[in-house]
């Protein structure tokens, strides 16, 4: 058995173990016959008090700004489990650090996920995917045939019918979920901003399945439709789509099996992830199709439209594969105003759109370039990955959940956006922040726009392997922008907010966010060019940033070194997290990792920017019901205990501030009592392995270790070797630089002691069938 097969064996065992070892009741969904499918488990809070400075922030704007919050959610996702695994691959000292593990694998992972789920499934803050072209096309296909069937009394199908009876049913069948979440409304075009206060009290009432109703039914988690700014801003839509794609990729990167269906392989790390990933995929395809089919601005078409008496530009669809700017520019405008139809119980629906702001913003274009590139990487049939099972040629009859043909859509859109960036934003090789139909390219670029463009372009270079010509052009742009950044840096390598193009004259403040974005952009350029100048420049900026802007008492970056008032928007926090994360990975510097932890805890937990949380980051429903609305005492309340009469959703606020002056807010550190250092195998396991392998080895992202064939049959040295060296390519990190030999020994003994219970033994599970043989 080669190592690849061994890995697959582990995965198969893991997946069956999830079901075999799960407890009954509130953690699982039931099939009508009583069979249970485990859903994602809550996590206990870990003590982070030593990472708190004692300075707490104050929320100054509780609204949810889609673009900003989703950008933070994206950077936070990349600073989560992905970051943890990359650090372990690079041998950073991450072992025995329950705080780091909790910050990355639990808080970053879940806070990011909360935001997406809130916006895309609960809030109804946008136009429902149920109205989108994807389901429309499926309904039309059915109608084409139905023309002949109607005579026989069959009604034509609507999008809603397609969604509920065809698409959703096939997702359930393919992922092994017995039921869907009630009142989950996938959104296709998100609105610009909304008020995340709940309009009604969160339904915590325990249902017959042992769970609070809000877990299965999102009806009480809606936001106020009246308090949304219904403008559709392309950056918000692009960042949210990126978020959907990143999560879909994560959720569907593996398969699982179910002992009740021998021979069946289900999509997703587990049934719930599979279902969520499938819906995210559908939602992202709906977004792309909708934008492609009607939200491109045609600057040659001006007329009196909805904006009467002002002339506005027309919106049109493009064929993204055939598109060329030379034959008539079509681009994504900055803001679009929808005309909506309100149908009470139904997700709000569009009737028409009009261009509200015809500017092309580099940030918007970069967001879309990143999102579409990421989708293409997800759907790319040439990569031999598990995602090839998600996309098929006769969906859903070949076991896939999405038509392969939409890979072409993502690829075309990515090329379109790249061409438009070159056509509209490039001035002497440097990109400018904005372009307008009247005045064309501007003469300024902000460091933040440039950095996001660099990240998106570098991602394109890395992932668009079917577009060598596009990759070449993207690489040229990467070099051009990175060179510009190196050129305009001040003598101490610091940056101002923006620069003139092409002269390089600076303007705006010299603030913390500009430094962070410059680092992020330069390191993205370094990743794809391997040019050491960029690494050097990023490191030098990192030094200034960490010396001049870091407040040693508050453990925060000041916006301005001389200003004791610190104001963070989600973009500021995202820039800081992104820069620290990339610096850690580029330098392997443990002091920067320490700074990452402190900044995360101060800027995300202590600032109040994360307005509430759910069971997965420490809250305990039993204690919440008993009246303790911050049951894990971490300063972030449970959803119903958040601001307002009914509480507030678990999403990022738009603005928080700290006062670091003499009269500033300082409070006692609220956190659970410190935990003892690990001394037993179980403890080592809990702090290092549990995140992936689940509590007690039941499996989660990683395989189940209970009665694991590999663990039980390979023998102690083999397991020790696996823990020490990791499993390349499947996410099992090497622990030899992290854990001491004694600790590895302890944890291996613990793992080997994990045997099946009598019930499972009687069932003969798990089987460990290798479904993956080619």
């Amino acid at each position: 058995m080669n190592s690849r097969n061994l890995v697959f064996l582990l995965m198969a065992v893991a997946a069956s173990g999830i079901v075999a070892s799960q407890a009954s009741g509130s953690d699982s969904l039931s099939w009508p016959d009583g069979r249970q499918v485990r859903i994602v488990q809550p996590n206990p809070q870990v003590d982070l008090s030593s990472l708190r400075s004692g300075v707490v922030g104050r929320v100054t704007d509780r609204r949810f700004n889609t673009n900003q919050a989703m950008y933070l959610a994206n950077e936070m996702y990349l600073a989560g489990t992905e970051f943890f695994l990359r650090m372990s691959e690079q041998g950073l000292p991450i072992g025995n650090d329950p705080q780091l593990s909790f910050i990355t694998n639990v808080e970053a992972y879940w806070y990011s996920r909360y935001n997406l789920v809130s916006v895309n499934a609960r809030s109804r803050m946008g136009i429902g995917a149920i109205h989108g072209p994807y389901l429309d096309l499926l309904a039309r296909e059915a109608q084409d045939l139905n023309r002949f069937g109607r005579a026989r009394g069959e009604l034509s199908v609507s999008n809603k019918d397609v969604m509920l009876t065809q698409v959703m049913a096939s997702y359930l069948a393919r992922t092994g979920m017995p039921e869907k979440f009630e009142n989950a409304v996938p959104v296709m075009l998100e609105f610009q901003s909304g008020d995340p206060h709940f309009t009604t009290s969160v339904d915590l009432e325990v249902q017959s399945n042992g769970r609070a109703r809000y877990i299965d039914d999102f009806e009480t988690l809606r936001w106020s439709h009246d308090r949304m700014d219904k403008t559709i801003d392309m950056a918000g839509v692009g960042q949210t789509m990126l978020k959907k794609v990143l999560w879909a990729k994560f959720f569907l990167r593996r398969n699982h099996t179910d002992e009740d269906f021998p021979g069946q392989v289900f999509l997703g790390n587990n049934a719930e992830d599979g279902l969520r990933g499938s819906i995210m995929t559908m939602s992202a395809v709906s977004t792309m199709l909708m934008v492609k089919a009607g939200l491109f601005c045609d600057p040659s078409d001006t007329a009196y439209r909805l904006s009467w008496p002002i002339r506005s530009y027309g919106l049109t669809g493009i064929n993204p594969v055939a598109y060329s700017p030379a034959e008539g520019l079509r681009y994504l405008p900055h803001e679009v105003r929808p005309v909506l139809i309100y149908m009470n119980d139904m997700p709000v629906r569009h009737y028409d759109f009009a261009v509200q702001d015809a500017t092309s913003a580099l940030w918007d274009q970069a967001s879309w370039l990143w999102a579409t590139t990421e989708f293409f990487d997800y759907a790319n049939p040439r990569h031999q990955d598990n995602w090839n099972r998600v996309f098929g040629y006769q969906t859903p009859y070949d076991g896939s959940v999405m038509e392969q043909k939409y890979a072409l859509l993502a690829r075309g859109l990515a090329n379109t956006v790249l061409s438009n960036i070159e056509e509209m934003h490039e001035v002497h090789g440097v990109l400018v922040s904005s372009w307008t139909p009247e005045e064309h390219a501007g003469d300024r670029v902000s460091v933040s726009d440039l950095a996001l463009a660099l990240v998106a372009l570098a991602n394109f270079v890395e992932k668009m392997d079917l577009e060598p010509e596009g990759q070449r052009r993207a690489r040229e742009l990467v070099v051009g922008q990175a060179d510009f950044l190196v050129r305009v840096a001040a003598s101490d390598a610091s940056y101002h907010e923006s620069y003139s193009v092409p002269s390089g004259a600076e303007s705006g403040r010299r603030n913390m966010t500009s430094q962070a974005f410059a680092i992020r952009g330069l390191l993205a350029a370094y990743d794809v060019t391997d040019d050491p100048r960029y690494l050097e420049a990023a490191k030098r900026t990192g030094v200034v940033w960490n010396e001049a802007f870091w407040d040693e008492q508050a453990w925060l970056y000041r916006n301005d070194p001389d200003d004791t008032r610190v104001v963070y928007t989600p973009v500021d926090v995202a820039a800081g997290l992104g820069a620290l994360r990339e610096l850690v990975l580029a330098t392997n510097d443990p002091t920067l990792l320490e700074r990452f932890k402190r900044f995360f805890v101060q800027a995300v937990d202590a600032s109040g920017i994360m307005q509430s949380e759910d069971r997965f980051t420490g809250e305990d429903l039993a204690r919440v019901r008993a009246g303790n609305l911050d049951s894990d005492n971490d300063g972030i309340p449970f959803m119903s205990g958040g601001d307002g009469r009914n509480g507030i959703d678990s999403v990022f606020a738009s603005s928080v501030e700290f006062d670091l002056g003499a009269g500033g807010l300082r409070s006692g550190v609220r956190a659970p009592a410190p935990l003892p250092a690990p001394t037993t195998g179980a403890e080592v396991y809990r702090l290092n392995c549990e995140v992936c392998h689940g509590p007690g080895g039941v499996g989660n992202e990683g395989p189940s270790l209970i009665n694991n064939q590999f663990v039980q049959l390979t023998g102690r040295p083999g397991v020790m070797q696996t823990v020490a060296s990791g499993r390349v390519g499947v996410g099992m990190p090497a622990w030899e630089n992290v854990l001491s030999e004694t600790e590895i020994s302890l944890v291996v003994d613990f793992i080997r002691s994990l045997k099946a219970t009598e019930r499972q033994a009687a069932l003969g599970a798990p089987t460990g069938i290798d479904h993956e043989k080619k």
Partner: protein
Amino acid sequence: MKRRAFDLIGAVMLAGLVLPNAAMATDDSPGHKLFLEKGCLGCHSVGGQGGQVGPSLDQVADRYTPEWLYTWLRDPAAVKPGTVMPKLPLTDEDRALLVFYLIGLRSDAKGEVPVVASADAPADAPDLDPDSPENDYLDLGTKESYVGEQRHTLQDQVQSFIPPLYEPAFTQSAFVLPPGAVRIASAYRHVGTIDANDVAGERELGARVLDFDLKRQFYDVDLFLGLDHNFTLRVNVPILTSQVDAKLNPAFFSPVSVFPQGSSTDVGDISVFLKKKFFDQGNFPFGLAGVLALRLPTGENDAKFSRRVTATTPMGSGLVAGDGVFRRFSDDGRLPAPLQPGLGTLGGSVGLFTTRQFDEHGLVGRGALHSGALYEVRPQDDGIDPGNLLTYFVTGVKPLIGDNLSLDVTYLLTYQEEDEYAGLTGIPTPTGPVLVPRPSFSGGATQFVATSLIFTPNPLFRFTATGLFRIDEPRLGGSPPWVFRLGLTYTFASGLFQSGEWQ
């Protein structure tokens, strides 16, 4: 046992597609005949019979969607270049019949366990060819605005999602019909007996009228057409029946009976309404719509009392009571304006309606609150000015039982300008008639409260039953103490403008 739930999901999944009756696969189905006629069995087998050149078709519909099979049959080589299957001369209907036949062979149609494919990665070569027919979707929205075109497909969704339960039973709302939708509504109003003394206006006359019963019944037929999602056209045809049952007691005479009891049915003034939605609650805190209406003089306005009613005194002196009572309003004994079927001249109205919908988390749960005002201009004609009319209403609609029954509570206020009649009339006195200006017949504010039940067995059908109860009488003239109304509405789902092809 454990499989059953899964089978159920499989069945639901398949049922989401076109699921014809399994009987379609029987031997006498047209699809089966066609299957034999076209020689399919030469290459394919069914139930072990037939050729081996192509794959067995026993469970082909388990593996492919009906739409895919339908497309495949049009031109196999276009779907899979290089296939040996020829392009058969089939009409669209032939292809559909063949697909129905093949669906009938599906395992679930035969009561077998459906095959759910394994998750093994598809073996097909990657196909990212933009010219492949399956990538037609790339042109979506390029030739015709997809968004604009999509408006025409709204009706299915609106009709299946806006419960007609949220619409008021008889007042107006800011809702408009989806484009192309046609709705027919009819209503019957049974009006309570109007008090005789109010009608005759004995105060001005110095006359007393006893037991004057005026019964009027109204039938309304309405035709609605959704023009665009912002406009709805409505044509209202009122039909009214009047019946008089009266005894008169003119001054200084003994009571007289009125004979015969007159009755007539007339078509009133036909009105054409154009409603425009200004704001939808999707964009605005509440929905707002305006209406402009034209009232055509189709109803007659010279109905005469004397035509229907004569009265005799016990002495048989031949007094024509109708003339005596109503000649006060016109020289020729015409009925006063409120009792005429029509105005006799062109009128019109303008109105504004608001609608606010509530989800189930509001104070009263899901429902809707409508309000509006309508100002009707009624010009004078032939010496009679009926007086303009203002109507104001507030209506709350609250679904009671699921999506099938809701309760409507309405407050209705009408204010009518006093009507005016040209000329002088003689009032009988002991010393002989005295000429005075003709008095007004009606005018002032009337208020009603109404409750209705709205029953919708499905979103296209709607029955309403309403009782209106007067809480405030007008200053002048008669008004019914109650009105009972029955309504029936049907909406045609198919629409007039079917969507065009977008390819």
